[in-house]
């Protein structure tokens, strides 16, 4: 509904209304939308809303230490709970500091509402103190944004923002509210009186196409499921439906970084993650398949590798809620616009009703081939008695988490540690894995872990980090201490920006330009300085004790794991290569370092 329509409708319908301030409307509308948690940071242009927060108990506000942290915390909260994450910031620098988090949520389709204060309407455009063209700046990094110029429009806009954020392909929505609008009095409108006419995403699939797709699957000799974050976004039900359908068909399944957890990793049909650092078996299955069933993934360049060599002999089925994702990077044979959950359920029904069955002989051959690839043992690494290998550290973490009865949530920063975490940690349920996939935001993991812990007080939340990434939002330690959030920060500390170093070694003639960090802080003392707990492991035999201790702490804890400085992350598809040209750890020495 446009603002003008909202006004008309409010006048016509005469719903039960009350006159309150804009700031109170914000609280009222958030509460009506089921929001009880807000991450934010106050400032001049948003003070009326903070005044309203002070005088109520419906919404709990978490004070972060930097607005980027508020954005990522809201993302972590949203990914782990399935609810809309909310952050509240002031005008100017407050709003510009959230731009990275908004872009991150945009790329990874995370439902989020960001409310920013703005200078009073009569000062907009005058280069006022802490003024920024927030809607202009965030237009490209939000799904939609609003500048509220009249308090009468405010409630409808907030309700509309929540609808836009969580419907269709989810994403971040920003509402910029000038200070005088926060002070102004107006009539509150409840969400039932707001209707949106223009934005109506399709969620139910075209059944004719579903039937074509399932018929194609039934005839397949070398099928593979390739699923993504869309399945997670469709809710736990969709993951359950996917698991059942995949088991029903007997097909192998791989997933993108964003889709980990939708299908349990302990199942036999699970091939592991695909893509640049995906498993050998997953990438070869993608390359050699004859029918690819892509659900809620978007053929990202890190997944496809070289486009013209991507899965050359397959018929491709693509299910996505966003019509613009279909045929964007890869031409597909059957494109179905639908919510992942609805589509999977529809496919499963057709499969059952038509009594389809995978060709048993072909499936035996296909699985034999896949098991041959599995024998490569592509995640193998050479362990050491003296130096901690990062993979070994994560294997030990995994072993301890498997014994722990608590629900484990993993967040990561960005780099080698992120890929190792994706390869070595178990993801058996959706909404347990929070990582910055599309944007690749270093500094995401700690604030996201804070948001995750806020949304899951009984869970154990671990930020698998690198020593470079963690320093990008280390100030959020203070937030974790303030709210007694016992987040664990598991730093794989190699003193290098590991992934940058790896690319420089393999692709830039071993010229290590600016990727070594000198003068790192003492992370144990740093943790203690913030009021948390600091632990360190320097040799493999210290690891288990340190992890055990970490899992017992009731405070934010940094574990400084000093790992091998030169370990590289394999398997790897070098940029410009196809899926079947990936290199494994033992091949690394043979890799032609002069190629690029």
């Amino acid at each position, binding site marked *: 509904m*446009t603002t003008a329509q909202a006004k008309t409708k409010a006048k016509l319908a005469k719903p039960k209304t009350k006159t309150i301030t804009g700031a109170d409307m914000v609280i009222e509308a958030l509460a009506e939308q089921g929001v009880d948690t807000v991450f934010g940071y106050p400032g001049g242009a948003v003070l009326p809303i903070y005044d309203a927060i002070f005088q109520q108990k419906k919404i709990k506000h978490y004070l972060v230490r930097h607005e980027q942290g508020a954005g990522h915390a809201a993302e972590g909260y949203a990914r782990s709970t399935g609810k809309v994450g909310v952050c509240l910031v002031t005008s100017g620098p407050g709003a510009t500091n959230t731009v990275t988090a908004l872009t991150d949520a945009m790329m990874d389709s995370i439902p989020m509402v960001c409310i920013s204060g703005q200078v009073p309407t009569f000062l907009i455009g005058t280069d006022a103190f802490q003024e920024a063209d927030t809607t202009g700046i965030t*237009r490209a990094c939000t799904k*939609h944004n609003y500048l509220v110029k009249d308090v009468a429009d405010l409630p409808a806009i907030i309700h509309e923002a929540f609808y836009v954020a969580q419907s269709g392909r989810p994403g971040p929505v920003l509402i910029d509210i000038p200070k005088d609008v926060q002070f102004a009095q107006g009539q509150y409108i409840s969400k039932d009186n707001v209707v949106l006419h*223009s934005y109506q995403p399709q969620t139910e699939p075209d059944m004719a196409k579903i039937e074509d797709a399932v018929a194609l699957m039934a005839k397949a000799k070398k099928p593979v499921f390739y699923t993504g974050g869309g399945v997670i976004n469709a809710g736990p039900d969709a993951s359950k439906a996917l698991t059942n359908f995949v088991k029903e068909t007997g097909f192998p399944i791989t997933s993108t970084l964003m889709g980990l957890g939708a299908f349990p990793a302990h199942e036999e049909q699970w091939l592991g993650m695909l893509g640049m650092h995906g498993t050998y078996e997953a990438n070869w299955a993608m390359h050699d398949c004859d029918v690819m069933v892509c659900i809620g993934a978007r053929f990202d*360049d*890190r997944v496809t590798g*070289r486009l013209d060599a991507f899965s050359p002999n397959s018929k491709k089925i693509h299910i996505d809620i966003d*019509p613009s994702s279909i045929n964007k990077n890869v*031409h597909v044979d059957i494109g179905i616009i639908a919510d992942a959950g609805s589509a999977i359920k529809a496919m499963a029904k057709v499969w059952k009703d038509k009594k389809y069955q995978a060709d048993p002989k072909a499936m035996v051959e296909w699985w034999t081939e896949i098991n041959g690839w599995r024998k490569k043992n592509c995640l193998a690494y050479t362990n050491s008695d003296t130096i901690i290998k990062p993979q070994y550290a994560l294997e030990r973490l995994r072993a301890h988490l498997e014994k722990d009865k608590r629900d484990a949530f993993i967040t990561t920063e960005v780099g080698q540690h992120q890929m190792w975490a994706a390869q070595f940690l178990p993801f058996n349920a959706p909404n347990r894995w929070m990582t910055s996939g599309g944007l690749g935001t270093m500094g995401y993991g700690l604030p996201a872990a804070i948001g995750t812990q806020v949304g899951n007080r009984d869970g154990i939340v671990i930020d698998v980090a690198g020593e470079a990434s963690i320093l990008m939002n280390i100030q959020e330690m203070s937030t974790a201490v303030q709210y007694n959030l016992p987040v664990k920060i598991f730093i794989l500390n190699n003193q290098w920006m590991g992934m940058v170093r790896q690319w420089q070694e393999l692709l830039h003639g071993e010229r290590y330009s600016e990727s070594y960090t000198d003068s790192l802080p003492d992370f144990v003392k740093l943790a203690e300085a913030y009021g948390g707990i600091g632990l360190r492991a320097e040799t493999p035999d210290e690891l288990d004790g340190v992890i055990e201790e970490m899992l017992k702490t009731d405070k934010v804890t940094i574990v400084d794991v000093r790992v091998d400085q030169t370990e590289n992350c394999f398997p790897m598809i070098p940029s410009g290569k196809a899926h079947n040209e990936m290199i494994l750890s033992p091949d690394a020495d043979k890799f032609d370092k002069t190629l690029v």
Partner: protein
Amino acid sequence: MARQKSKEATTSVYGAGPKDLTVEQHTMTIMVDNEPGVLARVIGLFSGRGYNIESLTVAETDHDKNISRITIVANGTPAVIEQIQHQLERLVPVHKVVDLTVEGAHVSRELGLFKVVSTGDKRIEALRIAEIFGAKVVDSTLESFIFELTGKPDKIDAFVDLMRPLGLVNVSRSGSCAMMRGKDVL
């Protein structure tokens, strides 16, 4: 891995673009809510994703429903044109996007204003050509005319070419307005 420095080996994933380079021109009509920033959203989408706009016109067409109609002429490969349509449909204030070039027969018109400064024979010739094209004189001094001409974009182009040697100093063109032929409604 083979140590060969072929072209293929240096192709980066970023550079492996589509090979289909047939560029087509399409005319699209977009119905949007008439609200602040909506044009910026449409234009930002084109600039942000590297699409080319040939022309763009916009004005409110339904005051009661608060709807504006945008006509965009864009160039791109078929895949890019398909992306443009879907990306436009993603914008929240967009009600409908119709690719008139795909839908079939449509009428496309453009308005132009042309200032021609000349005297003597050139001035007489300019006036004569204007008559042939059916252009109207909307302003005149002893040394200048402003002509108004409506027509298909290529007719406007032809008029510009003819007027250039006759003292054409300023051109203002509206860009295309377009509508589907027949009784069908958008």
